């Protein structure tokens, strides 16, 4: 899968939020926010074709977490990204 084009992660007062690029409207009443870990993963796979396993590898390289937990967390995160419509297969 890939991250959808036209989104940019920016920091607003310590919050990592996704904003639309270009002339697309930014709706500040419903904005997607990421915690530090998901922002790290998001930045790590920008512009790449990635799999859940790639995210798990990234996660394990940066955080002290066992593989089973990492896999479960990544699955949950990817589901949320899909639901939010910011990644596509």
């Amino acid at each position, binding site marked *: 899968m890939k991250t959808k084009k036209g989104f940019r992660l920016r920091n*607003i*007062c310590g*919050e990592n939020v996704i*904003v639309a*690029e*270009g*002339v*697309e*409207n*930014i*709706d*500040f*009443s*419903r904005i997607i*926010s990421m915690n530090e870990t998901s922002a790290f993963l998001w930045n790590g796979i920008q512009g790449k074709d990635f799999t859940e396993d790639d995210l798990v590898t990234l996660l394990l390289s940066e955080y002290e977490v066992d593989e089973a937990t990492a896999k479960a967390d990544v699955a949950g995160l990817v589901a949320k990204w899909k639901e939010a419509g910011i990644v596509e297969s």
Partner: protein
Amino acid sequence: MITKQLPNEIFIPIVIEELESVEGKTVTLPLRGFSMRPFLEDQRDKALLIAAREIAVGDVVLAEISKGHFVLHRIIALKGNRVTLRGDGNLNNEYCLTEHVKAKALGFYRKGRETLDSTDGLKWRVYSWFWLRLYPIRRYLLFALHPHIPQRFKRAKRP
């Protein structure tokens, strides 16, 4: 979903920066405050904004009326680069220069609806026509619509 509120003096400059990043960019901004009553309600409605290029009397604009103090109010007079603003729900004026006018409202999303009440639309124009002409009795209309009795006039509660 979690709702976060940021201080205006930090958040609004970011909104303006985004609006000015690309020509034609728009931003939907949740509204706070009561100064654009009766049309717009605190924490209920949203404004669709675009960077201000040309402004005119009657426009609702986002302006920095003093350092870090932003308002979304209606332009009631324009003379050269001097702008007079007044919130629909206010009785007082504010003054700034055209350079302090950062964005203009294209319309409003009200009462949780997905459809925009455009500032070019009939509803907004009819509302504006009446509301501005009713200014002499605005004080009473606002009180009739949103009655409140200042604390100092209320009878003290006995324990």
